[in-house]
């Protein structure tokens, strides 16, 4: 069966490398499903889970904090500022981050920049918790 090479790269180094028969990701414009031989494509991603369906029929979840996806016929590269494989997520830490973000969000409603940042952090934390429970 044809497979496609997948790598998830962050500034702190590669997070995931492997082969897959399909990759699905959530781009800003909507859900993307990528099979081997896809035309070259670049798209920004939302804070979400990238799902890598590997040859044995198993699905790997990788939490990404935005970034973008670059697709070539034989290779998919995801560049995100932070990414974690579902198995590596520390749920306690994500919960703590979620609480912190919620507190910040509740305490300063006037400062729009800070609020936006807190909301962003909240989204990231919820995404991680979500994915960690799926594994």
């Amino acid at each position: 069966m044809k497979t496609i090479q997948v790598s998830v790269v962050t500034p702190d180094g590669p997070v995931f490398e492997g082969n897959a028969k399909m990759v699905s990701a959530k781009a800003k414009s909507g859900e993307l499903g990528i099979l081997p031989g896809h035309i070259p494509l670049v798209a920004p991603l939302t804070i979400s889970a990238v799902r890598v369906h590997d040859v044995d029929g198993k699905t790997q979840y990788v939490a990404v904090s935005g970034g973008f996806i670059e697709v070539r016929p034989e290779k998919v590269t995801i560049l995100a500022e932070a990414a974690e494989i579902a198995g590596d997520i520390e749920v306690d830490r994500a919960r703590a981050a979620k609480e912190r973000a919620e507190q910040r969000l509740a305490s300063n409603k006037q400062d729009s920049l800070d609020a936006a940042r807190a909301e962003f952090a909240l989204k990231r934390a919820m995404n991680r918790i979500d994915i960690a429970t799926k594994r």
Partner: protein
Amino acid sequence: MALKDIKARIDSTKKTMQITKAMEMVSAAKLNRAEQNAKSFGPYVDKIQEVVGSIASGSNAKHSMLLTRPVKKTGYFVVTADRGLAGAYNSNILRHVYRTIQERHKSADEYALIVIGKVGVNFFKSRKMSILDSITGVADQPSFAEIKAIASKAVGLYADGTFDELYMYYNHFVSAIQSDLTEKKLLPLTDIAATKSKSSYEYEPSEDEILEVLLPQYAESLIYGALLDAKAAEHASRMTAMRNATDNANELIGQLNLSYNRERQAAITQEITEIVGGVAALE
């Protein structure tokens, strides 16, 4: 000098040498790690550069971060260390930045400073230059999350027009004994190499919207890359400085030992002369 004094100096120099030697070894280990970090960061920035290059070359997409605009205010992003004992590492950068600012600007309204590292912060504070933003206490092996805030702030300040160009100053790591002072124009991103990409991409939804995400991420990654580079250079120059200190201490100990022995000999000779003299007087 009396024998006892020389002995005391030898002992204290030996202790100093032990410390400098330990610091040298610690820095060597940190340098190793820093080089590894820089290596694992490589693929990320290469890939971003490739995609940015292919978009920039293949289209007429215009984004504010790509366009040069009239300069009213210049931003300076200066990377220094938190501690000294690293040879000329900090003073090189600070002297250069200070001189550049004096040459280029007449008033304090024309420039803004963003500083990493305690040494830099103290330097500019003592010269009454206002610092827009700073972070200190960056880990020896910084993670991206740690500098994300200051990097995105720097990029944001450019985007909202606080300054119209941004220069970055840091020491580029060349080898364990050499690092080069580097001045890099970070924003606007004028020097994106229009790479001939193997594949022309489909853009989803559009080039402009991708640039909106991609360019800030690219600029931030450049800042992070520079910081990793600077950290490697810092550890390297601290290692070299400490090795020099150890060598100097060794040399000093040699000299002190020599004069200690000479003094001891002199004392013995004198004692013998006194005894012989005493015996002669008795006869």
